[in-house]
């Protein structure tokens, strides 16, 4: 890729051609705060907190959308820039209902981070009271527009990442708010509950309902795993506290799903803790399933397979892989059938 050279805050910097100033700065270790920008939704330029000064261009420029050009001189820390950023965060804190003390997002909230980086403890503007009703009509998502910062990330994700086309930014000016369909309650809308919007939301405006009150963000241990539901192999993080799954999020920078999950992967984890789950192998004896150890079960299966092979030949055996398991598991299944059992009869459950 062609490289270009520019100057950021007096330091020589390199960037890939076509990169934004924001990326160029980050690549070169220069921090620029962002709120509406997300690598996956890209489209941004709304919150204006990433403003910088570019020599030769009027006004402040948004670094998330302006392309870096060869020879550019960029300033990211002038007084005007810092004051503008402070104004923006203070306006947010004054216009929404932000009380971080018991907020679910506290600890991983991008607005909170921005305030922290700018050294703002509170807004110097008066707080304009906001008391919008919280929409908890969805079985899985709480939508609290009192904490929305109008970043458009959820709207962009819903329309252009998962393409469910449910969310839109409705109304204008200070009334601007995220609406479902024609301003229906989320639970009555065409929302398919994939939770993409929740994952993209930088604040607590969109939240996992089941996780509410179950633990602070810093108490949760993130466990990386592969979704067990289908063969796509979506990468996800289980957020675990005291051996209990509190919520599930998609891994942002990993193939194949890059953060996106479906309703099952994201919200369908209750079975993990179900007392009805099988916890040991069962072997049918005299018409009844009886608990067995893994050694017993494996020996039993091997014995039976060998018996069938001996009396009826390998063609009497078929291996059926699981459509919901990983490629690796299915590969092993295939290998086992061909190499160990000696048959080409391998298929998977979705076809049989």
């Amino acid at each position: 890729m062609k490289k270009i050279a520019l100057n950021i805050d007096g330091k020589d910097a390199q960037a890939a051609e076509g990169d934004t100033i924001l990326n160029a700065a980050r690549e070169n270790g220069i921090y620029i705060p962002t709120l509406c920008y997300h690598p996956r939704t890209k489209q941004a330029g709304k919150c204006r907190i990433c403003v910088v000064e570019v020599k030769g261009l009027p006004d402040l420029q948004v670094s998330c959308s302006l392309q870096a050009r060869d020879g550019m001189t960029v300033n990211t820390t002038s007084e005007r820039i810092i004051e503008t950023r402070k104004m923006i965060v203070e306006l947010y804190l004054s216009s929404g209902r932000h009380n971080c003390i018991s907020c679910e997002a506290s600890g991983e909230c991008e607005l909170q981070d921005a305030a922290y980086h700018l050294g703002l403890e509170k807004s110097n503007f008066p707080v304009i009271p906001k008391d919008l009703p919280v929409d908890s009509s969805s079985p899985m998502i709480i939508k609290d527009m009192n904490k929305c910062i109008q970043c458009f990330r959820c709207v962009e994700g819903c329309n252009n990442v998962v393409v469910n086309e449910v969310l839109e930014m409705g109304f204008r000016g200070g009334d601007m708010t995220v609406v479902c369909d024609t301003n229906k309650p989320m639970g009555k809308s065409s929302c398919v509950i994939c939770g993409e919007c929740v994952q993209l939301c930088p604040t607590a405006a969109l939240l996992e309902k089941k996780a509410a009150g179950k633990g602070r963000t810093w108490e949760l241990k993130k466990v990386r795993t592969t979704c067990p539901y289908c063969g796509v192999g979506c990468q996800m993080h289980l957020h675990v506290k005291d051996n209990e799954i509190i919520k599930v999020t998609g891994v942002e920078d990993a193939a194949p799903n890059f953060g996106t999950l479906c309703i099952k992967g994201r919200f369908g984890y209750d079975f993990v803790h179900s007392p009805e789950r099988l916890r040991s192998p069962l072997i049918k004896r005299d018409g009844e399933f009886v608990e067995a150890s893994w050694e017993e079960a494996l020996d039993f299966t091997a014995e039976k397979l060998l018996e069938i092979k001996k009396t009826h030949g390998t063609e009497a055996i078929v291996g059926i892989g699981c459509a919901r398991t990983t490629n690796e598991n299915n590969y092993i299944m295939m290998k086992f059938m061909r190499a160990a059992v000696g048959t080409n009869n391998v298929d998977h459950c979705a076809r049989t």
Partner: protein
Amino acid sequence: MQKILFKNIDVPDARSLDTYKSRGGYAALKKALSLPPEKLISMVEESGLRGRGGAGFPAGIKWKFLPKDRNRTIYLICNADEGEPGTFKDRHIMEFDPHLLIEGMTITAYAIGAHHGFIYIRGEYNWIAKLLMSAIIEAVTEGFVGYNILNSGFSFYIDVFRGAGSYVCGEETALMESIEGKAGRPRLKPPFPATFGLYGESTVIHNVSTLSCVPFIIEKGPEAFSKIGKPRSHGTKLFGISGHVNKPGLYEYPMGTPLRKLIYEAAGGVRGGKRLKAVIPGGLSSPILTADEIDVEMDFDSLLSIGSMLGSGGIIVMDEDTSIPMIAQKTAKFFAHESCGQCTPCREGTNMIKFLIDRIIAGKGGHTDLEQILRLCRYIKGSTICAFGAAAAMPLNAMIKKFRGEFEALVR
């Protein structure tokens, strides 16, 4: 005095095509079609015509920004949104001399190679939209618009599109979004309309008054236009004078006419013999002037040099009984109401300014409130997606700075 935009304004039934033709109408179009498009572009450039929509960008240069590839789709848009408070010039052209605009659009379309034009008209002007449609049909019937205009081989169609009542839809990219059927929210720039405009195609957009100057320039030649007015502000301008004057109305004067002359000669002075207190010179978003500043000449540069702007040329005159804080309150309310809400400094900033001014007017404000408003004005300007932010910040900033005493008297 030379009239360009109002040459037919006193003629009865000027709006009919027959009257327009009998006054020499569409002669400019005939002349234009006999010239190569490049020639027309250079004529307009030489005339020094600058946009009448507010920013004063030179029209000829805007046309030259278009990609040179003549096979591309190019759209021409006429901005007839006229949302700026205190502004009522375009509606008169469209209502009383619609063919002037239609002729101007058709010549411009031929010059830039556009085959499809839109007139985006403010929703409240619905009767004018109807008049425009009838005038377009008349023009199509006689071959001035539509397929193969005057047998020249050039075709150009015009659609009238009504807005739905939003000030920001006058901003060129919000306007394009609106025509496309989307919410009226300005786009990030770059890319600019010359390369990515309506439906993603190259687009030229002009105010009604800008396009209506084009027939004169083509017919009489660029010098006839550039010799009127001031060196960098050529031609005439429609000044809409409202407020506390004896004869509110629309007046066509050369660019650079002193504001004093417009108020006292054209508009007959301040009503009831009252003293003049302040003037908003170019629509609500232009910073207010005190009575001491009205010797300024009404052209782009002179107003800029005293920290204001020519804007739309809508002059709002206020007499000694006017309370500037009340004007500021109305101004703040307007901008908070009209912000599209897309970017934070504007959405939350205009809302906060309104909240603070309301509090001051209610007698509950403090000195810090005034400081906070000034702080907002300072940092909103230049940090927003579109120029709305600056349009909201600049006038309020000027009102407080120039009439600070009145605000101080209200705070504790």
